[in-house]
């Protein structure tokens, strides 16, 4: 059995499993056998800041937040590229300038599209 090439791997696997499970088992044992359980309704309540929890935790967030976050990226990405563009502007050729303008136009187009769709109005 020891001659099996997978023998050492099996031993290591068992050791790794034990390393992970032994603390969990000890914690479980400690909680079940030694810890003094004194549960009550207040102790078992979910919230932990002294106040009683109200309502449900399953609430919906407005999708407008996500749309705003995405549109923010237009300005965010634009700023990242605009700064090096502005710094190197005097040394740029015509084709580089055109490429940059096309890029900015693409972003502006996205913004205009969102604007036309009414995403920018918070309702």
């Amino acid at each position: 059995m020891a001659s099996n090439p997978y023998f050492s791997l099996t031993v290591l696997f068992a050791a790794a499993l034990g390393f992970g499970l032994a603390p969990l088992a000890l914690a479980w044992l400690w909680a079940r056998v030694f810890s003094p359980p004194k549960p009550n309704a207040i102790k078992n309540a979910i919230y932990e800041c002294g106040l009683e929890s109200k309502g449900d935790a399953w609430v919906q967030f407005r999708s407008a937040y996500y749309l705003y976050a995405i549109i923010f990226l237009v300005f965010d990405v634009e700023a990242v590229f605009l700064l090096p563009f502005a710094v190197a502007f005097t040394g740029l050729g015509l084709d580089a300038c055109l490429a940059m303008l096309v890029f900015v136009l693409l972003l502006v187009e996205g913004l205009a599209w969102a604007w036309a769709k009414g995403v920018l109005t918070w309702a």
Partner: protein
Amino acid sequence: MAVDEGLKIELGKQGIFVTSLQELYNWGRRNSVWPMQFGLACCAIEMIATTMARYDMARFGAEVFRPSPRQADMMIISGTVTKKMAPQVVRLYNQMAEPKYVIAMGACAISGGPFKQGYNVLKGIDRYIPVDVHIPGCPPRPEALLQALITLQKKIDGQHLTGEDRPRFLNAEAQSEFPVPEQGAHDLEPTSNTGVWPVPLVIR
């Protein structure tokens, strides 16, 4: 005790360490009393100072302030408990895991202190939850809080794990829930928890 104190010291000199499970258990508990992280008023500033390098509460194993009652062993009532805040304090105490201890820090936490006559001030947190150590002062100096912690450690050290006088957390019949007061028309209702605080008889 099976081994008497003299023999234990004699064995200790020979390099043999004798202990009992109770001593070992209490030694472990008293040296890692984790306080709950919350301050109520100006006493909290002294409490914060106590944990910092100058007074160094860590020397006594109580530096790990837990922001959750589930992980805390000790509640330091550091300051004035208003009637608005009292239900929250009592609920937090209830949510702490056993064994749990309470230090009432300063005149306000003990009795309402200088604000005792205030309509909105609770006249001592020991009306609702059992307090282990009271420290007077307005506010108490950090040394006083350390003294309170040491006093609490001595109390923990002296607790028996078995027998009639065993602490609450080892006694299945002992009370563990302390009702949270509610805001009434004129005062908190109830004005004190029964079994925690004997209502003094006012003679007019």
